[in-house]
């Protein structure tokens, strides 16, 4: 079913189209809005503002569109990805959705290795893009998917192009070139703190570098689960995980440990108070950003909301909503 790959679509500059029109779905990656979420933290100094970058506005529905697009474009430019090859990677979901979307748009087949317990919505979205999925054990988490993917590659190394989001420098590069400059522009250079969760580390590393290059005093803080067994899909507890090659903890100014239950409660509160339904990693980012902001007299804190919540509606995230609602009847 795959015709000749549509390489030109990846290479063409978006500005070839009139404003407000796009020639390819890939031209719609990035340029996501910043939303003022200061109302979620009434305890803060009146001179502190909180902003969330709504990465769910990307066409594939998450921040992962950026890294995936940069890695695939680089693969095409270097010749590592060429007709006859299949894009393969291990992913717990959002990167898989991004790669499946990009593969569909460019005419390349995609194979994804993921734990069998990813949400039903994700499986359905990936299937809709025509990608093939190989499931690894849910007991082994994303590390199990990484190892299974390595094994598939060893069987037929010439068949595949592996973007390798955990080790590919184009992952943070995407954020150096897009997310960071977008935040700088949207805050008119006023950003003082940047907060993002750690999954591969690409977002926090790349965006942090871009912001520090413009103002070395910007503080870069990572949010991570408070325990190895957690419910913050998309985030990694670094002390007990395979540490991604692109993750360099020494570049961070701090880390905040996030309890799963607190992050879930913030997801519920965002829906009820702001009309914004996000995924659990956004709740984790807000938890960390509030913690950072409480110590400030003045500042502009920008956090990443990696995706919207519609792809988690069937997951345990919502198991506690009724109870939360009873505890917060006026929310």
């Amino acid at each position, binding site marked *: 079913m795959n015709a000749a790959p549509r390489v030109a679509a990846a290479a063409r500059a978006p500005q070839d189209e009139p404003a407000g029109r796009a020639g390819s779905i890939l031209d719609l990656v990035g340029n996501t809005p910043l939303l003022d979420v200061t109302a979620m933290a009434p305890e803060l100094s009146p001179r502190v503002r909180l902003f969330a970058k709504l990465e769910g506005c990307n066409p594939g529905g998450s921040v992962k569109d950026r890294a995936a697009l940069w890695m695939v474009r680089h693969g095409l430019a270097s010749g590592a990805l060429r007709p006859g090859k299949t894009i393969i990677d291990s992913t717990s*979901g959002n990167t898989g959705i991004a790669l499946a979307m990009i593969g569909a748009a460019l005419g390349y087949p995609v194979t994804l290795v993921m734990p069998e317990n990813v949400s039903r919505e994700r499986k359905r979205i990936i299937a809709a893009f025509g990608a093939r999925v190989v499931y690894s054990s849910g007991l*082994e*988490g994303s590390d199990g998917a*990484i190892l299974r993917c390595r094994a598939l590659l060893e069987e037929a190394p010439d068949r595949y192009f592996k973007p390798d989001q955990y080790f590919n420098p184009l992952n943070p590069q995407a954020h150096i070139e897009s997310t960071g400059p977008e935040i700088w522009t949207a805050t008119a250079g006023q950003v003082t703190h940047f907060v993002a969760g750690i999954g591969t580390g690409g977002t926090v590393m790349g965006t942090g570098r871009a912001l520090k290059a413009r103002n070395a005093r910007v503080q870069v803080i990572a949010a991570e689960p408070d325990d190895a*067994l957690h*419910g*913050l899909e998309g*985030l990694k507890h670094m002390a007990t995980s395979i540490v991604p090659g692109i993750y360099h903890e020494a570049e961070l100014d701090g880390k905040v440990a996030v309890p799963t239950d607190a992050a879930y409660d913030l997801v519920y509160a965002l829906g009820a108070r702001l009309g914004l339904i996000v995924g659990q990693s956004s709740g984790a980012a807000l938890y960390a950003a509030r913690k950072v902001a409480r110590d400030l007299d003045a500042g502009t804190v920008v956090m990443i909301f990696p995706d919207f919540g519609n792809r988690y509606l069937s997951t345990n995230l919502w*198991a506690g909503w009724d109870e939360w609602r009873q505890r917060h009847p006026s929310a």
Partner: protein
Amino acid sequence: MPVKVRIPTPLRRFTGGSEEVGADGATVGAVVEDLERQFAGIKERLCDEEGRVRRFVNLYLNGDDIRFLSHLDSATKDGDELSIVPAIAGG
């Protein structure tokens, strides 16, 4: 023959690295108590302060989510398999 409990990677530091351990009990709750007796600290990871299974932990008894059985009161017998499945981690 006790209940076979499959341990996910993040909890294997409690079981000395074992992927599968045996535990006794006539209900899932009793099996969890026996796990705690053998591997102190593991119950706190699985259950909240009120003793309920944490939202982000899935317990599957012979492949069925105990939320659709009788939660911690689900009956177990020798030879059953209880899987502890965590949320996904990593991008």
